[in-house]
């Protein structure tokens, strides 16, 4: 059974934005959607090595800072070249003002 870990405080992520979270030698991206829901994916783009947390959140899309590849951060779906491989997503829950992700 995968563990729930505390990623950040709710207020650490602005609405329609993303932050980076490192844990156990891995990097994740934590998103807050415009409608105030939280999501989590792997932190690196699947195209080359770029931190998605440096990218831009627009609605349900995260745009990678390196070649502008886009993913739906809610489903992980790659949305066209130069990204072809989907992102891994992780379950998220909020507990006592903290964002918890299951990894």
């Amino acid at each position, binding site marked *: 059974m995968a563990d729930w870990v505390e990623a950040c405080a709710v207020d650490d992520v602005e609405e329609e934005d993303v932050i980076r979270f490192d844990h156990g030698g891995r990097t994740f991206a934590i998103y807050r959607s415009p409608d105030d829901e939280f999501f989590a994916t792997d932190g690196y783009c699947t195209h*080359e090595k770029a931190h998605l947390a440096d990218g831009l959140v627009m609605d349900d899309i995260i*745009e990678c800072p390196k070649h502008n590849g*886009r993913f739906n951060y809610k489903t992980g779906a790659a949305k066209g070249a130069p990204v072809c491989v989907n992102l891994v997503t992780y379950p998220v829950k909020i507990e006592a003002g903290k964002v918890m992700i299951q990894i």
Partner: protein
Amino acid sequence: MTTAAKTKRDYSLVGESTRAAIETGLASAEWYHTDVPRKAMKELMQRSDGPAIRDTIIWIAAILGSAAGIVWFWGSWWVVPFLFVYGVLYGSSSDSRWHECGHGTAFRTRWMNDVVYHIASFMLMRNPVQWRWSHARHHTDTIIVGRDAEIAVMRPPDLLKAALAFTGILDFRYSLPTLVRQAFGTLSEEEKSYIPEMEQHKAVVAARWHMAVYVATIAFAIALESWQPLVLVGLPRLYGTWHMVMTGLLQHIGLADNVVDHRLNTRTVYMNPISRFIYWNMNYHVEHHIFPMVPYHALPKLHELIKHDLPEPNPSMWHAYREVWPVLLRQLKYEDFYLKRELPPTARPYRGEFHEVDMSAAE
């Protein structure tokens, strides 16, 4: 100006330089970034459809207007100014539209980027699939020899080739046979080196669509017994390309190769407003390479924010060409010679060990 490590450059993407770049860590390396607070960067990255819709309406209206002038004045000398304007809009400004929409930054709405990207790709005789991938590689490995598929002037420079580029002849000679080859289903080994397998069939389909339009245009010209359709579709890639070459060559020419700092291998040049419209602000090229997420209309603001960390921009295109000409002449004899960019005292330094990397060490 200085000289760097002695190296014979092999510009093929599957050759010795490729292997050396991978082995020395120059390929897919971590690049220098100016520090910009996340809040400011987020503001600069914001997308909107407004500026690009406005500019695209002006662009299309000017294209249609000058095309109408060509048709109207066909057969008289009055056609010349219309050919001039139409040629530049078709053969040059399409490059910056292709570029910005390829990044997906011009419009906020994805389909708008895609539509303009495909139209501009056609105008440029560029396979939209192939070039999307080659440009991604250009951003990953900018002017890394053996990796970058878009190095415009190689060392030692072929000056005749560079001069002929202004006429569009060379590009035409390359682009058209490439499209024909791809339409028949053949991708070169180099193309396969940067287009992922799952995308390769799309490149063939795109080439077939482009060829279909050209065949239809030729058939139309034969039916009309007139050059007019070809002067409007296809040939502007020849006679209107000069502005794209004039602005585009300056992006990297004469500067360092095999460095992982865009401040050293890329140039920002102040330009007149007309060229900036045609070029969609890509004269802020260092800024664009460091932060490709920033849309063209926000580049002047980005420039103001980070210019303390960048070399002094060239004040004009004329100035930039005057600066680069002696460097090119020198490179004819010493291909390792290049123009070393001076960073301002306020800039963070570049890690010199990358700059002096000796590719032969990997042999």
